[in-house]
């Protein structure tokens, strides 16, 4: 029996995704009382909320990024009830701790994907498709030009590049976001069996991750005292903001590479004045998005965070009801190539089209 058309289970407000039946927000971008957080990236987890609910692995990262707050953490598939609404977290495969949020009330189920990746990277948890009535999906790489190589092939390319640099006694500097991409690189580079040098920003996140108990290769922090000699031919991971700064001087001679899904397009790779671009992404590619959406069996799909208009139009043409939603997501980690631009001055207009 179709229900009377009342307020939807989740609505799009100028503070974020809001569940009125449970009176909580998901990844709000303005301070609220109760926030359920998909993952620790800065465009999804903001400061100033009274209570946070997140995955066990996300908690230490939020503590490192946002300081002391009221955090409650749960495991995947564990159900919490708030005001009669059931909430559970399910692996999203995007980064350590990243979760989709399943919200169910009476006989209706909504899933908020957060950011996700369908390929299992071995550290973020395997993306779990959840059946639901309504799916709110991201679309960072929601165009068919974005199709990733399997992780194994990408890792091989990166390893070969490092190997070539070593042969030339050149330091390999890899630019990667400190949460997510940096850890995958550590995994890809473990085979060299040598300490990997980290920029301070990545080091801090790495220390916070120790609490999750996940094993990583040996790392060393680069400090003003680190000897030049040690860095010769070594492997260095730094955040994109360090690119082109005097911080790099000590590593000369070096070769640089950016690791990001945007490197799929030559123009982007060339615009960054780096020697190499590896299209290694923490988001689903076009095929991944379509597969994930289909496997939810959802009747309605809201698209946020990226190429929402293209993906949403395509879904409608494929017979899946869809609408685009403008959110403040996507101005945070991977999407933001320009480290200086203000992440807080974001567009909060909500437009849902029929």
């Amino acid at each position, binding site marked *: 029996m179709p229900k009377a058309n009342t307020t939807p289970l989740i609505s799009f407000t100028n503070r974020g995704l809001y569940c009125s039946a449970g009176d909580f927000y998901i990844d709000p971008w303005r301070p609220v009382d109760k926030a359920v957080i998909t993952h620790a990236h800065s465009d999804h987890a903001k400061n100033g909320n009274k209570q946070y609910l997140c995955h066990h692995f996300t908690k230490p990262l939020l503590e490192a990024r946002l300081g002391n707050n009221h955090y409650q953490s749960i495991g995947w598939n564990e159900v919490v009830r708030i005001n009669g609404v059931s909430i559970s977290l399910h692996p999203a495969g995007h980064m350590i701790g990243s979760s989709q949020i399943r919200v169910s009330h009476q006989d209706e189920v909504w899933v908020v994907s957060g950011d996700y990746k369908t390929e299992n990277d071995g550290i973020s948890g395997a993306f779990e498709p959840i059946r639901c009535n309504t799916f709110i999906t991201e679309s960072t790489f929601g165009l068919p*030009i974005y199709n990733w190589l399997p992780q194994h092939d990408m890792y091989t390319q990166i390893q070969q590049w490092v190997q070539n640099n070593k042969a030339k006694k050149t330091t390999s500097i890899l630019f990667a976001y400190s949460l997510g991409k940096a850890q995958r690189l550590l995994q890809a580079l473990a085979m060299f069996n040598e300490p990997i040098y980290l920029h301070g920003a990545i080091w801090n996140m790495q220390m916070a991750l120790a609490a999750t108990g996940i094993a990583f290769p040996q790392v060393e922090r680069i400090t003003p005292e680190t000897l030049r000699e040690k860095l010769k031919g070594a492997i260095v991971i730094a955040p994109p903001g360090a690119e082109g700064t005097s911080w790099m001087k000590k590593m000369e001679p070096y070769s640089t590479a950016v690791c990001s899904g945007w490197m799929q397009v030559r123009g982007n790779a060339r*615009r960054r004045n780096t020697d190499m671009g590896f299209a290694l992404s923490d988001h689903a590619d076009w095929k991944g998005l379509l597969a994930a959406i289909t496997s939810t069996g959802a009747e309605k799909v809201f698209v946020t965070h990226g190429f929402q208009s293209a993906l949403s*139009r395509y879904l409608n043409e494929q017979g899946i009801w869809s609408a685009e939603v403008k959110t403040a997501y996507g101005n945070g980690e991977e999407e933001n190539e320009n480290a200086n*631009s*203000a992440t807080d001055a974001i567009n909060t207009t909500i437009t849902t089209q029929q």
Partner: protein
Amino acid sequence: MQQFSLLVHTLGTATKTNEKLEALATYFTTAPTKDKVWVIALFSGRRPKRMASSGVLQQWCCALASIPDWLFLECYHTAGDLAETIALLLPPPTNTTHTHKHLHEYLEQIIDLQKADEAAKQAFVTQCWLQMNTDERFVFNKLLTGGFRIGVSQKMMVNALAKTMQIPASAIAHRISGNWNPATTTYENLLSAESVTTDFSKPYPFYLAYALEQTPETLGSPEEWQAEWKWDGIRGQLIKRNNELFVWSRGEELMTDKFPEYQALLDKLPNGIVLDGEIIPAINGKPLPFAILQTRIGRKNISKKQLQDAPIAFFAYDLLEHEAQDIRHLPLAQRRLLMENIIANAQHPTLQISPVIPFTNWQSLVQTRTQSRAMLAEGLMLKRKSAPYQVGRKVGDWWKWKIDALTIDAVLIYAQKGHGRRSNLYTDYTFAVKDGDKLVSFTKAYSGLTDKEFNEVDAFVKRNAIEKFGPVRTVKPELVFEIAFEGIAASNRHKSGVALRFPRMHRWRKDKKADEINTLQDLKNLLLTYGK
């Protein structure tokens, strides 16, 4: 083909000139000779005629990838390059075990199919696509669509050839210039010394001037220098050899047929000469604005009226060959004397001499320079009287001393994503001036900002987009820029009634608010003063 696709990949990603040079030299040492000829041709702007339009390639790609046209266009706007968009959209290769063909074999097939029907073309292209990986597809699509602007200049290629062949770069540059067909020319013939004497049309590489950034006093004594106007036309070489006349543009395009006026000179000039000068429209030796030349470029059939209203002349300023001898090693003063003789004997309004501006001290020249716009010149040229004619851009003997650009303050109103290197950033802008309380768009500009500034404007556009029309975003009129340009002309194709020449962003006026910009009337005043 794999070897070539690797070369293109290296040239596209290498950040250091040396690496690119190395990659080219390696290629020229190891690649099959037939392929090498084609690479020289492609990298010097000689490419086979297109066998399929962009629209048709798009259709074939959409059919293979099973995507609608609008989605293809979204992808194209994001990737910014047609060849790359197609390469990324095609489904994975189905047949990778095929025998790999050479670059020249693909090119020969492309040429063979030019006159074939569409079905045959589609079958060929589809079959090639399904055998190739993404990098090879990209390169193959570039062959189909033409245009290999991939971060390698002709000069760099010439240097690489010079290195592998152990021949001076200037000789290589001369040998690969002019009129030759890569399908019928062998590598040995192309680069042999004899080739130059058998091709009568062959121009010399142009000597290019550097911009003078300091005061002219830094050049030393005025007697050592010759001053001329810097004409606002197309740089060209006018050649008469073997009773035939050829006109080349600096872009190494043979323009003889585009400007039938020049044929009148055939009987007036001696054989075995090459003149360097400027292609400009002029009546009785008085230059007309560049905009008039533009009405002639790209037009196949020229009407009587056009020949009357915009007759093209050649303003000669140098002589590179005399009595069939290369005289580029002679000092400018001597070449000039020989040239003046030839032009005086020809006595024809189509062939003008670019006059020498007399001056005894630098200060008087500073005065003369201020009259450039009235002369329809872009400024002055300064050339050392004792210097030989060199190859390419060399510092020291030729300087261009341009007048300051015209400027106007305007507000950014539309933005669009750039292409190629800037495909994910909003870098193509449209600007407006005030007209009462309305804004009137009057020009586009794409260049002049630093990467950092482009990033800043891009972030502004993403946050302040009001409306979208396809790829275009209307933005809040807030950012003010000083737009510099070289010339202004009346135009009924533009809402504002004016068209600018070489507009670019000179400065970001963060100190100015949108209501402090210039007005439409200011633009019209500039048009009155400079736009005749």
